[in-house]
C-alpha cells in the first residue's frame, strides 16, 4: 500500500502528523538523543558512582493519552531517619530535548520519600528515576512509556 504514496507526499504526511498531533514542541528537535545521552546524564548526576536497581519505584502509565501531561510518582524504600534517608530524587528522560525532568531535595523531615508530578513526553521513550541515599549511594528504576499522540488534527484557528 505504502509504495503507492509518493515519497514527497509521505514525508508531508509525516510532517503534518508531527506538527498536528504533537504540537510544534517536539517538531523543533527531531529525536536525535540516544540512550547514551540518558546514561551520560545519570552518570553525571551520580558523580560517577554506581547506580543500582531496586528500592525505587517509578510509577508512570505505560500507555498515555497525551504526552503534554503524564502523571509520574517516584517512591523510594527508606526509613527516612536522620541516619538513613533519601537525600534527593531526580527524574530523567531519553528523548525530550533535555534529559532532566525535575530534581527534588528531600531529607528526614519528609517522613516518606515519595514525590508525584506531571511531565511532558515528546515521544515514546524510557523514563528513569534516580534516588540519592544519605550514605551517598544511588538507586534507580527505569520504565518504557508508549505515547499515543492525540489524533485530531487541530491547528491554531
Amino acid at each position, binding site marked *: 500500500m505504502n509504495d503507492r504514496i509518493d515519497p514527497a507526499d509521505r514525508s508531508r504526511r509525516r510532517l503534518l502528523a508531527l506538527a498536528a*498531533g504533537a*504540537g510544534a514542541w517536539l517538531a523543533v528537535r527531531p529525536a536525535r538523543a540516544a540512550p547514551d545521552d540518558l546514561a551520560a546524564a545519570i552518570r553525571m548526576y551520580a558523580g560517577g558512582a554506581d547506580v543500582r536497581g531496586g528500592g525505587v519505584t517509578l510509577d508512570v*502509565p505505560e*500507555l*498515555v*493519552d*497525551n504526552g*503534554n*501531561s*503524564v*502523571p509520574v510518582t517516584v517512591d523510594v524504600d527508606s526509613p527516612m531517619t536522620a541516619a538513613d534517608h533519601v537525600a534527593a530524587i531526580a527524574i530523567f528522560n531519553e528523548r525530550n530535548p533535555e534529559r532532566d525532568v525535575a530534581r527534588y531535595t528531600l531529607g528526614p523531615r519528609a517522613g516518606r520519600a515519595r514525590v508525584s508530578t506531571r511531565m511532558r513526553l515528546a515521544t515514546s521513550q524510557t523514563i528513569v528515576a534516580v534516588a540519592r541515599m544519605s550514605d551517598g549511594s544511588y538507586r534507580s528504576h527505569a520504565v518504557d512509556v508508549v505515547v*499515543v*499522540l*492525540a*489524533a*485530531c*488534527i*487541530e*491547528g491554531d*484557528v
Partner: protein
Amino acid sequence: MSRVAAGARVLALVAATVVLAASPACVQSDARRPGSATMSPQTRAMQRDDAQNPAMLWVADGEALWSRAAGPAGRACADCHGDARASMRGVAARHPAYDEASRRPVDLGQRIAACRQRHQQAGPLAPESHERLALEAYVALQSRGMAVAPPADPRLDAHRERGRALFHQRIGQLDLACAQCHDANAGKRLGGSTIPEAHPTGYPIYRLEWQSAGSLQRRLRGCMGGVRAEVPPYDAPDLVDLALHLASRAAGMIVDAPGVRP
C-alpha cells in the same frame, strides 16, 4: 418458584422497563457516554480529584472575580447575584439559553460577558480571555452533578433545529459532518484516540492538548479546522446553534464541569 410467581416477576420487569422507557433521560443515560468514560484512568483521576484538576486554577480565579467590583458601576457579580453557590446552581446546565436583549441564544460565556457589559458597564470580556473562562468555570462548577437541562423555550427551537442541521452537514476539504465521527463512529479509534460521542457535559474543560482551559466554542472551532472547513469567528451564531443541539443530545446527562480531556 411457581410458574405464577415467575410470570408475575416477568410482568414486573416488563412494567419497570416500560416506566424507564417513558422517561427519556433514564433510557438515554444508559446508552450515552460522556467524554470522560473513554479516557485513561490517569486523566479520569485528574478530573475527579479537584486537587489534581488544573481547571480548578480557573475556578479559583473565577471565584475571586465573582466578588470583585468592575467597571464604572463599581459592582461585582456578587452584588446582584449574591453567593454563586446558591444563585448559580443549575445555570450552566440550562445554557445556551435565550437572551432577551440580543433576541438570540447565548452560551454561558456570552451570558457572563453580556452581564458584565450591561450591568457593570465594564469592558468586554473577550472570548477565551482568562477572565471569561475563569468566571465560566466558576459558574459551571455550581452545576456539577446536575442533569443537563436545555430550556424548553420555543424561541430556541429554530436555532436548535439549525444546530442539528449543522451537525449533519458535511463541511471542509475532508467533507465530513460532525455526525459522521461523533454519531456513526463514536467509540471507535481515530489514530490513538477514542472518538467521543460529543456530549458537552464538562465545559469549560482543561485540555491536555491545549495545556490550558478552553470553551466548547474553542473545541468546536478546533474540530472545524481539523476537517479543513472555514472556521467561524468566536461567538458566531453557528457555534451557539451547534451548542444548543449538543445540549439537547446530552439532555439528562450529568454535568461534570470543569472537565479534563486529553
